[in-house]
């Protein structure tokens, strides 16, 4: 359950103020599938970053599963990110020196899970995302689609309630892109809330609900 109320986000660029988000309010219930669309620079990523607790709004309130997360301190926000939110980026953001296995295991490692327990969970995840024989490969030894699958495996390894994906297919060819979207939709069928940012209308149409952003405002929501 997501409840955003009157979110403002202003960036200072030199002398100028850029309003990335203007009075944005929205709610989403558990298990929804939402596409956020709109032209470049309209504030889609800014909105997703706030939903993912990767950035703080200048004003407004954010409630996640009944907790006013916008008022939590840094440490508690980190905890929420760890347990409730899975983030998938356009540029994958894998740690280049670490293998696919270790990249997927990172959230478990940060949460202090013992190696033996981790082993099982990561192995299962690798198999589920078709990466069983890529466990010991480093990111530069993987294709774009495989990298994004590693990133999704990492985003879901903590069994979050929300998956936020910022143009997850932006760096992939068509086939790999469709594959990734199908994986995300499969996760959504398992009751995980899925919010995808995209400017591909075809991809956007697959979602049950589309939010259109223009110039920092929600222009349309249906």
């Amino acid at each position, binding site marked *: 359950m997501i409840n955003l109320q009157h979110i403002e986000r202003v960036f200072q660029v030199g002398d100028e103020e850029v309003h990335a988000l203007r009075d944005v309010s929205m709610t989403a219930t558990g298990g929804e599938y939402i596409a956020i669309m709109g032209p470049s620079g309209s504030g889609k990523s800014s909105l997703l*970053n706030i939903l*993912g*607790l*990767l*950035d*703080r709004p200048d004003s407004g309130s954010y409630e996640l*599963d*009944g*907790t006013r997360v916008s008022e939590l301190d*840094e*440490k508690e926000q*980190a*905890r929420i*990110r*760890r*347990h409730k939110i899975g*983030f998938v*980026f356009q*540029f994958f*953001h894998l*740690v280049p*020196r*670490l293998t696919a296995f270790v990249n997927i295991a*990172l*959230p478990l*490692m*940060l*949460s*202090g*899970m*013992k*190696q033996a327990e981790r082993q099982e969970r990561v192995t299962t995840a690798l198999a589920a995302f078709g990466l069983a024989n890529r466990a010991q490969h480093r990111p530069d030894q993987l294709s774009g689609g495989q990298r994004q699958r590693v990133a999704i495996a*990492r985003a879901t390894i*903590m069994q979050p309630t929300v998956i936020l994906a910022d143009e997850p297919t932006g760096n992939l060819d068509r086939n790999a892109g469709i594959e990734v979207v199908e994986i995300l939709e499969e996760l959504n069928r398992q009751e995980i809330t899925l919010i995808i940012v995209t400017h591909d209308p075809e991809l956007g149409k697959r979602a049950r609900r589309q939010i259109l952003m223009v110039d920092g405002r929600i222009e349309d929501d249906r």
Partner: protein
Amino acid sequence: MMGNEKVAHPEYPMQIRDILSFSLHAATANRGRTLLMLLAMAIAVSSVVVLISLGDSARHYVIDQFATLGTNLLIVLPGRSETTGGPPPLLGETPRDLTLDDAMALTRIRTVRRVSSIIAGSALVSVGHLERELLVLGSTSELYEIRHLALNQGSFLPQGEPTRAEAVCVIGQKGKKELFGNEPAIGQWLRIGDRRFRVIGVLSPGVSLGEDLGEVVIIPVAAAQALFNRSSLFRVLVESTNSERMEQTRQAILDTIRVRHEGEDDITVITQDAVLTTFDRIFKALTLSVAGIAAISLVVAGIMIMNVMLVAVSNRRAEIGLLKALGASRTQILGLFLTESTILSSIGAGIGLILALLGMRLAAFLFPEFPLHLAPWSSTIALGVALITGIIFGVLPARRAADLEPAFALARR
């Protein structure tokens, strides 16, 4: 609701093993950076340790030399101490001679145990056709105890009135070898200047007061007065009965001589303590300044590490943002970077210590006569400073990235 959250997701700290392996992996991922940092740290630590140790060894060497004087020793020299370091006294103001009678007067002081006079000069010493220039010391039998001399063979100067100029001598080991070879010297005659002396003893090799005892010939002080045609003494060595009474003895010596020299304070009395304190001060200052210079290299190493880490962190800014996005807190990230720079600085400092030990070994091999040791606190200080600078300079740049909101740290620049 928050309460339920905490029950649902109990928090555990990261496993130590994971912290270590992650940090070690990160530390070794970039070979060039790691090698540069290790090198800077190793050079800095080894130079601090070696320089401090050399300074400390030199201090010990000099102090050991003077400590052999004995704590009860006072040295009387002609001339006022006020003139030391100043211009030489003007004509007519030359200090009164220090005479054998002055020295004998000192024996009557209650806190004085022994007195020995010294006249020094170099002279040609010959046996047959063999001739050597040696340091001739005119002295008395008391010199043996006062300067803790040791004999290889024979006996020292006979006891008795110092005014008796008996024609006997005690010769150093090296002089004996050069003049007599492997033949026994005891009972043989040698010639100093135009006088003949019978050898009655051979000194053990050693160094006393900076003089190599191997190249001296000791003769009765009265004989030396005649030989050098000079009545004034070079030094009078006084041993007091009690090391607690040094100041009292010093005053008594000054008083006695003042009376004999018509009210003039024209001698200087120095004690081992005074000499040692001075040398100790000089060498400590020297060691400190050397250590200071070496410490600069540590700071330079620290700055190098900071630069290297700065570059590393801006390359890894995205990584820090990612870790935060995955749920790492600021403290967790600082912990990881702290571990990383601790590992790097410890390895660097360890290599530095090994280099320092090897350097000291090499120096000891090259200069065997100079007693070298590792100053006990040098490695502690160097390690401490190295770890602290390494860790501070390693963590500071990471802090900047960890303070950013994850979205900013992740943003492509």
